[in-house]
């Protein structure tokens, strides 16, 4: 089963699922960062040239330009939880392969190797590497042992869609099945009515009913699981 995720197990037996981000989304994040860096460097260089003028201003501007090129991604990734402003905006995050936050070493390595990824022109090597690699890593990521993943969104649990009187389950369900049941109850109203009836019929072995009545019974089971029924 392909789910596009990387499942990591902690020693406590907890499974963490990371979703590596593909080349397109990362490209947009890079582009946003590029624009931002351009604007920032432009403002800073203009200001310095205006304030100091001549060769001193020019020298300082070069330093600013250098820092924008090389320090910007590293500093943001280390101090901002693996996110440059572009990555933050597009919901991406840099992590180590084991799911831990990136440190100076990883961040510096992956950003230094941008030079390799940029070869021969405009990230040709990086793009090829991202298309070939199973976790969309460019050469810098592979060397530094980092991943770019989608940041987890905070999930807002929808309220159960009906007032149902709680009911015990007809037979014990495994934790995955309980989760699937709740998920199903939250989303079943989003599908067209005919399909809802079909799903109700599919649930007949569990509920002993058909159609809408079967769905209502599922809602009752779900209310029994969550204990969140309305009076």
């Amino acid at each position, binding site marked *: 089963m392909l*789910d596009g995720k990387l499942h990591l197990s902690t020693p406590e037996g907890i499974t963490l699922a990371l979703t590596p981000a593909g080349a*397109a*989304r990362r490209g947009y994040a890079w582009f946003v960062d590029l624009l931002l860096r351009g604007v920032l460097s432009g403002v800073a260089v203009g200001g310095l040239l205006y304030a100091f003028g001549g060769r001193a201003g020019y020298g300082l501007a070069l330093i600013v330009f250098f820092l924008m090129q090389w320090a910007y991604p590293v500093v943001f990734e280390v101090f901002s939880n693996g996110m440059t402003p572009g990555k933050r905006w597009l*919901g991406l995050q840099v992590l180590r392969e084991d799911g831990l936050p990136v440190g100076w070493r990883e961040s510096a390595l992956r950003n230094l190797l941008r030079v390799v990824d940029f070869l021969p022109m*405009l*990230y040709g090597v990086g*793009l090829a590497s991202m298309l070939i690699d199973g976790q969309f890593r460019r050469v810098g990521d592979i060397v530094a042992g980092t991943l770019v993943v989608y940041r987890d969104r905070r999930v807002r649990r929808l309220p159960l869609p009906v007032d149902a009187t709680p009911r015990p389950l007809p037979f014990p369900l495994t934790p995955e099945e309980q989760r699937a049941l709740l998920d199903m109850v939250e989303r079943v109203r989003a599908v067209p009515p005919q399909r809802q009836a079909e799903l109700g019929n599919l*649930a007949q072995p569990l509920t002993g009913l058909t159609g809408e009545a079967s769905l209502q019974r599922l809602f009752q089971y779900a209310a029994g699981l969550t204990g969140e029924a309305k009076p």
Partner: protein
Amino acid sequence: MQLESLQIDVRPGSHWAAIDLGQSLLRRYWKPVYLAWWVPWLTLSVLLWACLPADMLPWGSLAMWWLRPMFDRLPLYILSREVFGEPVTAWQALRAWPHQLRGWARSLTWWRPIMAGRGLYVPVWQLEGARGKFATQRRRALGARGAYGTASWFGVACVHFTLVLEMALYGLVSFFLASPEEMNPAGFLVTYANNPQLLALTGHICYTLADGLIGPVYVSGCFTLYLRRRAELEGWDIELSLRRMAERLAARSTALRAKSATVGKTLAAALVCSLLWFAPQHDAQAAGCPTPDFVTDIRKARPPTHDASQTALRNDLDAVLSSDELRNWQCQTIWMPKKTQKEKPGDYAWLEKFFRWLFGDGSPGHHEGINLGAVKVTLIALLVILFAWLLWRYRGPLGQLLKVAERRPPPPEEICGFDIRPETLPDDVPAEVLALWRAGRTREALALLYRATVSRLAHDYAVELMAGYTEGDIVAACVEARRVGALPSLTESGCRQVTDLWRAAAYAARWPDDATLIGILDGWRSAFTAPALKVAA
């Protein structure tokens, strides 16, 4: 459409993650997809290059770009079948292609070729076969909640990927053409700026390569986005989990019925209640599965029963232990190849070629006056003999090298609470044992005998023993060592004898008489101290 055989996870997630899933799907089925794409793609490219005059070639590249929607249907045909577990070869896809091209005029006109998110809507036409107003409705439903926007952004990104790859190819060529002092990735374009014919040709080649790589990426990304959207709209994952639950319920109720016939109801209920939580999911087919051999072997190896009640008890236990929740084996129906794969004919072709070269008509030795072939064979034979002799001559050092790799960790110092280091044992073990026995310290005597036995096994015969082994484990290790020929059978039987003696004495306080002990000690001397049988540790 068999949802059960779906190869990808369709639980709802972000649209971008769905698009990235397409990349994973493409990586799994890249061979047929790229083969099917490249056969007509390359043909068209070569034809255009051959037919068009050199200064018209950019229009040829443009025509290829414009015909992209036609090529998009090939990967879609393959992936839409592979994703439901139906294997498709590139050849099948190419055969089906003309039939899949219906509506070509429609998709090549108006704004449709330049729609960045068109990949999301292609399946509506090609796979669902929707037309007219219904198709418009379908497209609106699928593209809602930002899906079309995401597909469009992905399309824009793919256009840029094509450009990036083209530029990278230009850069690569420039690097190879430039001298080390003046590396410039745009060097090629700058140098040949005044040669439009060459630029048109390289542009055509670069476009063919780049879009031939990115095209399937775009199609597969849009296809998985389409699948996720459809699954979300129609509750595919809900259906899947409902079906799985119903299946498990059915398997469980048949298992329950079978059990209640054999075991008392209370026991069954208690077992089911307590163990259902840990029960792994089994297929419905598992219910009517024959008992595997290793289980029947274990059952056969048991000693015969004393009476009818024990037989009945055993049957009950077997029935409980082979129930769905308790058994440690699983039954699955899988496909196996009827024949194992034939050896590829090309594997030894080089050897055949070599011999032909050596002995055949055209061989180098034949057109000389003397038969050089025989000389060649002699020389090769001498070389082989020399190599074999070298191996034999340096077998000592080579053997040392191998031995280093096989070195095992030293045996533990203590097993079963006994100190088994050889230096703690007296020189003449049987004499010492007998002396202790005569002095009335029977327990100490037998303990020393057993300790010496284990020590010899571990140190002299290199039987692999672990610190946590019990007496039974040690006997089992001896049996295994004798089976592989590392232990003489005399020593193995000696070990059994001493173990039985020690167990009977230590745990049941059944002491042997003097004659038995002396007999065993004599046997021990020959079994454990025969220097000819010693294996270097």
